[in-house]
């Protein structure tokens, strides 16, 4: 912008200067002020018409620069007037006709002002220059299709001619000073033409010839520096050479030689500097190009890599989508174009997945299915994630419709994933049916079991009743015989009878124990929190009622347990009675009861110092009717421990025993600690 400001300043200044010169010359002619007509004494004065022509040219220039069409038109008209003047003068010179175009102003004054015996007229080259300048002004805006401006070419020619004239004056060219058949161009005329031509050139700096000299490229920058040098240096050097010759310092030939050498040197320097600058610029450019090429290459590599990744990803997605069995994945964009279509269900449902991509959903999906899909699809594009069950091609399908968000959290595409759930539904239905059947079976089974239980009840009832009666009779009649016929019986007879009675009693016990054992299975367990000490005390009281003993019972601190009270009573009764019974033959029978916690279990122990048993028969201990002693040693039916084991197993625990023959035994039972 600064540059342009300068340009308009320069050209305004130059044209203004030109106008001022013209005005002062006119004033000179008007008021006969010699210094204005002829600033350089002895030299030609500017013709008044020349001055007028300059005035018109200046005005035309300013008018042509404006953007308003009427002004431009006026400018052109003025330029045409200048053309006319010039044309008339040239015509008169060529044809020899006397057209007083340059003498009609200030006729007397002109006649009076003579140089070398000739009145002041417009010089031929002045006329030529005005002809050219006029055309230049008229065509100042004209631009050829190739971008050339004829005005610039014209101005350049005019400029050269004016420069030649100026140089002529500086170099004291005799023809300019002496008497001629025609008047040469006045020096200030030449200056004015220089100003005018430069201004025309600067009127449109970015176009025509000036295009290469304006702007910031290397060439323009260099030209801007070198053009003034190209003009001034040779001119100056020429003058120097002449001055040397005038001062008789050297001959014309030497002078010319020196001039040539200087010009050569200057050229060479300029060329060197130019070359260096251009080389630098080119180097920088080449480096930049190389860097760019490298970057490009790297970029291309990246693009290739990315493309490969994308392709790989794409193939991964395709593989994933097509590997999920009985599924189909479709992806739609906002316009419902199909972006992606994979999955074996597509073929099964009658689609051609390769043909689907790029087409609209409404085109590729049959209208009945489309009408089901379209509303949820629209809702998905509004941001909703949906799922639904539908039927398609005779199959039950589960469909998930998922919106996909971009970085700005907007829905830019929607994924529709469908699964064939026909099989699953069928399997579910089967399971449901099986369950129903199972439940029915369970009900039936329960009924059966309940019936069986009832049978068992009546069984034990009849056992308890019907088996006991004959027993009583056996025992009773044996007794009666004993009582009534005691005189008749001898010892042997009495002994035999007692055996009969004894066996009857035994059978009674067996029946009772067996009944108790069988009844265990029937009852439902009611677990409560039991204070073992309290239970044991109760048990001992009961035992003491039916047996006399002198066993010392030691109760240690006992854990509370959660179990069925009556069943546990039975357990303790059996264990305690056993302990007491089997230690009854000792002098100081002691029974110890304790408990401890061991690995998530509570272990209770009943220890006696009685007869003990041989450990190699320990596996027989808990069998029904199994005994390790004879009835002579200790009475008992062998059911007690079996009952204990059954009860403890029902509670989820274990029973076992350790003993030493003759020294005593310890009976353990464990229950889970919870």
């Amino acid at each position, binding site marked *: 912008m600064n540059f342009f400001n300068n340009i308009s300043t320069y050209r305004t200044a130059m044209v203004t200067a030109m106008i001022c010169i013209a005005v002062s010359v006119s004033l000179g002619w008007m008021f006969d002020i010699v210094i204005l007509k002829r600033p350089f004494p002895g030299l030609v004065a500017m013709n008044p018409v020349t001055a007028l022509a300059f005035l018109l040219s200046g005005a035309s220039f300013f008018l042509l620069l404006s953007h308003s069409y009427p002004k431009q038109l006026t400018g052109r008209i003025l330029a045409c007037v200048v053309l006319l003047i010039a044309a008339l003068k040239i015509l008169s010179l060529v044809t020899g006709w006397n057209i007083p175009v340059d003498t009609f102003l200030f006729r007397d004054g002109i006649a009076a002002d003579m140089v070398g015996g000739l009145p002041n007229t417009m010089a031929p080259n002045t006329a030529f220059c005005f002809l050219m300048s006029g055309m230049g002004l008229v065509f100042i805006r004209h631009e050829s299709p190739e971008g050339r401006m004829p005005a610039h070419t014209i101005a350049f020619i005019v400029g050269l001619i004016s420069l030649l004239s100026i140089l002529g004056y500086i170099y004291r060219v005799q023809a300019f000073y002496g008497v001629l058949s025609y008047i040469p161009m006045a020096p200030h005329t030449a200056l004015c033409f220089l100003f005018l031509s430069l201004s025309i050139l600067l009127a449109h700096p970015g176009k025509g010839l000036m295009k290469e000299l304006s702007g910031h490229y290397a060439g323009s920058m260099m030209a801007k520096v070198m053009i003034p040098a190209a003009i001034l240096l040779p001119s100056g050097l020429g003058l120097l050479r002449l001055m040397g010759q005038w001062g008789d310092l050297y001959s014309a030939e030497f002078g010319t030689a020196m001039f040539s050498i200087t010009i050569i040197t200057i050229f060479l320097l300029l060329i060197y500097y130019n070359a260096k600058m251009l080389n630098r610029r080119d180097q920088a450019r080449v480096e930049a190009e190389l860097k760019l090429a490298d970057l490009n290459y790297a970029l291309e590599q990246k693009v290739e890599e990315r493309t490969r990744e994308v392709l790989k990803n794409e193939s991964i997605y395709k593989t994933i989508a097509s590997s999920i069995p009985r599924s189909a994945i479709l992806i739609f964009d906002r316009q419902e174009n199909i972006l992606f279509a994979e999955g074996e269900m597509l073929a099964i449902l009658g689609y051609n997945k390769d043909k689907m991509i790029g087409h609209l959903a409404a085109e590729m999906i049959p209208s009945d299915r489309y009408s089901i899909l379209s509303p949820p699809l629209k809702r998905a594009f509004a941001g909703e994630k949906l799922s639904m069950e539908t039927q398609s091609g005779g199959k039950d399908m589960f469909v998930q419709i998922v919106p996909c968000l971009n970085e700005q959290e907007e829905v830019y595409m929607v994924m529709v994933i469908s699964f064939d759930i026909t099989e699953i539904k069928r399997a579910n239905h089967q399971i449901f049916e099986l369950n129903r059947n199972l439940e029915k079976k369970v009900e039936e089974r329960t009924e059966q079991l309940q019936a069986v239980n009832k049978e068992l009840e009546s069984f034990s009832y009849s056992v308890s009743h019907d088996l006991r009666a004959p027993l009583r009779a056996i025992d*009773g009649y044996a007794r009666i015989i004993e009582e009534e016929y005691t005189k008749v019986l001898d010892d042997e007879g009495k002994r035999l009878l007692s055996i009969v009675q004894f066996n009857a009693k035994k059978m009674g016990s067996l029946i009772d124990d067996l009944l108790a054992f069988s009844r265990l299975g029937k009852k439902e367990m009611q677990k409560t929190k039991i204070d073992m000490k309290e239970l044991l005390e109760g048990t001992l009281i009961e035992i003491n009622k039916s047996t006399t003993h002198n066993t010392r019972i030691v109760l240690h601190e006992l854990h509370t347990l959660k179990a069925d009270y009556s069943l546990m009573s039975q357990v303790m009764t059996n264990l305690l009675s056993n302990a007491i019974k089997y230690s009854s033959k000792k002098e100081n029978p002691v029974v110890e009861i304790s408990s401890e916690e061991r690995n998530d279990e509570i272990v209770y122990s009943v220890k006696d110092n009685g007869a003990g048993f041989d450990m190699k028969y320990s596996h027989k201990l808990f069998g029904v009717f199994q005994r390790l002693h004879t009835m002579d040693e200790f009475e008992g039916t062998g059911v007690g421990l079996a009952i204990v084991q059954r009860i403890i197993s029902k509670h989820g625990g274990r029973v076992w025993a350790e003993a030493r023959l003759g020294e005593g035994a310890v009976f353990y039972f464990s229950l889970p600690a919870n």
Partner: protein
Amino acid sequence: MSNTEVEILLVEDNPSDAEMTIRALKKHNVSNKIVHLHNGAEALDFIFCTKEFSDRSIFTQPKLILLDLKMPKVDGMEVLKKIKSDERTRKIPVVILTSSKEDPDIHTCYSLGANSYIVKPVGFDNFVKAISELGVYWILTNEPPR
């Protein structure tokens, strides 16, 4: 049977049990006037003076009825029920004498109004003891209803 006063009515289908019971009662001087019937039907006829016992007076009732439960034809429960639901016979003390220790039986009998429930001991000694004790109690100790 005759119209002579009956003190104890024994309803028992098992002859051995019956014999032992009668022997025990006699031996311990509880009573001599014991009538033994073999099943529930006979018992009801006796109590309500029907059929072969129609010449009995309904107002002359035994001081004690020893009733077994498991009997053919009409069982003990039935007899108990009938006796205890009739205004005329309700007051007669009925002692259930049976082998069964089944809870339902005990419960039902008491609900029906049995005065006592004895389980026949298995051992003969105990049996005799029980019979004599209950006999002494109900005939001699207890004040009969009027």
